């Protein structure tokens, strides 16, 4: 079987998080995004550079998903959350805490884990 091609800068970004070197893309006016970006959608700046992703973020919203897609069938129930890292927000799976105990504003760190269903890599948040 042919190995699937990597998704360019997305997989490189996951590699960097795995190596504790997470980053985000910042434009000349301080707007933060996740790669790949060639232009800032907010202000049109094309002067983009990689900046270190802050060490921790705050959960700004979360959900416990019980009806999953086939790709997450064995993961369910699982928690998906958006965490605010300051210049950029990231979506990830919350692990290391009971789903019922996930709280708004909780401080989390970011790492790369695996989907239980498929073994594919996924962004994972753990309480700090």
């Amino acid at each position, binding site marked *: 079987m042919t190995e699937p091609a990597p998704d360019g800068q997305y997989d490189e970004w996951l590699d960097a998080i795995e190596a504790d070197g997470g980053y985000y893309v910042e434009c000349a006016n301080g707007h933060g995004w996740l790669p790949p970006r060639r232009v800032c959608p907010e202000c049109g700046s094309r002067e983009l550079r990689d900046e270190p992703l802050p060490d921790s973020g705050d959960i700004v919203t979360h959900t416990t998903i*019980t009806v999953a897609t086939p790709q997450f069938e064995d993961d369910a129930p699982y928690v998906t959350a958006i965490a605010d890292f300051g210049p950029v927000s990231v979506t990830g799976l919350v692990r290391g805490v009971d789903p019922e105990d996930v709280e708004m504003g909780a401080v989390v760190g970011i790492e790369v884990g695996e989907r239980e269903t498929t073994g594919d890599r996924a962004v994972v948040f753990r309480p700090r």
Partner: protein
Amino acid sequence: MSDPRVAGAGVTKFGKHPERTGRDLFAEAGLEALDAAGVAPDDVDALYYGNFMGELAEHQGHQGPLMAEAIGVDAPATRFEAACASAGAAVRSAVRDLRNGEAEVVVVGGAERMTNIGTAAATDALAIAADDLYEVRAGMTFPGAYALMARSYFDQYGGSREDLAHIAVKNHEHALVNEHAQIQKEITVEDAIEAPTIASPLGLYDSCPITDGAAAAVLTTAEYAADHDIDAPVAITGTGQGGDNLALQDRPHLAQTPAADKAAEEAYGDAGIGPEDVDVAEVHDCFTIAEVLAIESLGLYERGEGIHAATNGETDRHGEMPVNLSGGLKAKGHPVGATGVAQLATVAWVLDGTHPRADAVPDGTVGVAHNAGGTVASTTVHVLEVKA
């Protein structure tokens, strides 16, 4: 050029028709629309057709010409894809072509076949309206995305699952007389709250069903309608469309839908009206929280106030501002690519008095249709008015 008229519309029974092909569903709706309008197929200048997941559900791309053929029309046909706002985008293009004189008659519509692949695969297909790299791979489903928005709304403005339940109860009640509706079953607030959770805080009754169905409408210039003695009192007087970042994580506010704000502002300005003039609204309630976000973006309610509208009885058929008299996506059903035109048809029928819930607004002359794609990264708003 004057405002385009809704000359006729057709909608299939929404529901579970796993064995019916998309082309057959659309043929039923399209032929019904042509018959209702009394327009000869030879007069149709174009078909603008909405469909979201045809490749995944039916292994069928390139549906434009297929659907033109299915309704006996030999005209250029193009498929529009803007997730759940696909048909709204199709309507907008038709309105522009009719206004600028490039067409006299356009069939707009859409179809979606969904139940044939089962709930799990349909959930998977719906998820691709989100950002695959940064959302879907983090487990986000379509209900999950709206659950994230709902929790953010509760956090910022208040409200509760009970308020959302009142929306479901209202829309189920509205659908009881709608023969096209997928779900014609009265429910209680308790039923909704006690239903199984899909993605907390949203439960089964916060969610629209998975639906097979099609809708179509024949739009003409006012001049064509007059020249052909077509009784078409309802005009599309305003069109607007707005966009936003695809991924929720990239938006500054998770409990507002600025794409809909922009679409509404443009459509109202286009029609020369304001939200205070609106008598009735069909809005995109794929989940109960979506109705709240929609009525706030439409300016019918202030931010943080829309959550109480159904609880207070203001948006039911006896209220000041009836919303989703069809039953909405919640009870009528949501065949994704057809929804925008099904909404348009509902508003036209309410305004011309032929809808079974038209008695909610006997003197209504202005309606809006709000059609949102994904987590409202695409939205169209259309204003419909009764003209002499």
